């Protein structure tokens, strides 16, 4: 609420918190590195399948957390409802995926 007041009075008292591009460029570099590791691990070949699956999924999840936290601002204040919406979506999505895998692997 306080933040909204600041934006509404539109005056000199407003405390600017203009974030620079540095953090976002850092997220981009980290995302690119995680992507490169994932592609390189597969392109190199000869990796253990179970190890590769775990490695690739970890790379993907880290990258998604970084991008949703910084680029979509979910780490910022006032994003509790968006986080709840997304967690709700991911919960149902994950349930569907587990259901499908269970159905295929242990029928």
């Amino acid at each position, binding site marked *: 609420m306080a933040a909204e007041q600041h934006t509404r009075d*539109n005056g000199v008292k407003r405390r600017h918190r203009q974030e620079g591009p540095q953090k976002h460029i850092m997220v981009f570099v980290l995302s690119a590195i995680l992507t490169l590791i994932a592609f390189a691990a597969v392109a190199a070949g000869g990796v253990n399948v179970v190890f590769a*699956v775990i490695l690739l999924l970890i790379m993907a999840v880290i990258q*998604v957390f970084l*991008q*949703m936290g910084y680029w979509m601002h979910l780490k910022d204040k006032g994003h509790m409802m*968006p986080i709840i919406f997304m967690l709700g979506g991911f919960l149902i999505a994950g349930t569907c995926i587990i259901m499908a*895998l269970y159905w295929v692997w242990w029928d």
Partner: protein
Amino acid sequence: MTTTHAEPVHGGLPHEPEKATAEGRNKVLAFWLFLGGEAVLFGTLFATFLALRNQTNEGPTANELFHLPLVAAATFFLLVSSLTSVFAIQAMHRNRPALLRNWLLVTVVLGLCFLGLEIYEFSEYVRHEKFGMTTSAFSSAFYTLVGFHGAHVAFGILWISLLIGQLARKGLTVVTAPKIYVSAMYWHFIDVVWVFIFTIVYLLGKVG
């Protein structure tokens, strides 16, 4: 802290114009609910794909089909476009409409590059690999999941292009800002979905 910043006095535009009005705040909040629903939609498509990915019906398998350099290039285009849409929103928060427009244009062009690669990829599969929508359960699940994502990219390109036009006509205001903001959220979400697609569909398809 009464430090007066050396920042230009914005022509009446609030610091975060997308959240300056109740309508803008509601639009952003409701858009997050939509993205939660999109997560469910893609989750069901991923579930279908994971269940059917080995049902190749004597057609091409994932390992035979996919070429990693093409996928890596597409990934690069989409990742950079997500960064440029961050820059667009930062330009919006600094009330610099021309810079905002330019970053949106770069985002659209990169999105078109991604889409072009995907169209090329699909047409190669259909024409040279005999891998069509009805070839196998794997092919149906593949085209549905990846094609649905591609359709989202195409929609995003159209949407952001229209917003660039509206920005030129109406300028950057508390009415246009929320629209641009949610389109950027949509674009980031598309990139997030692509991270899972290149990991689960392409890379794990290569691994086995």
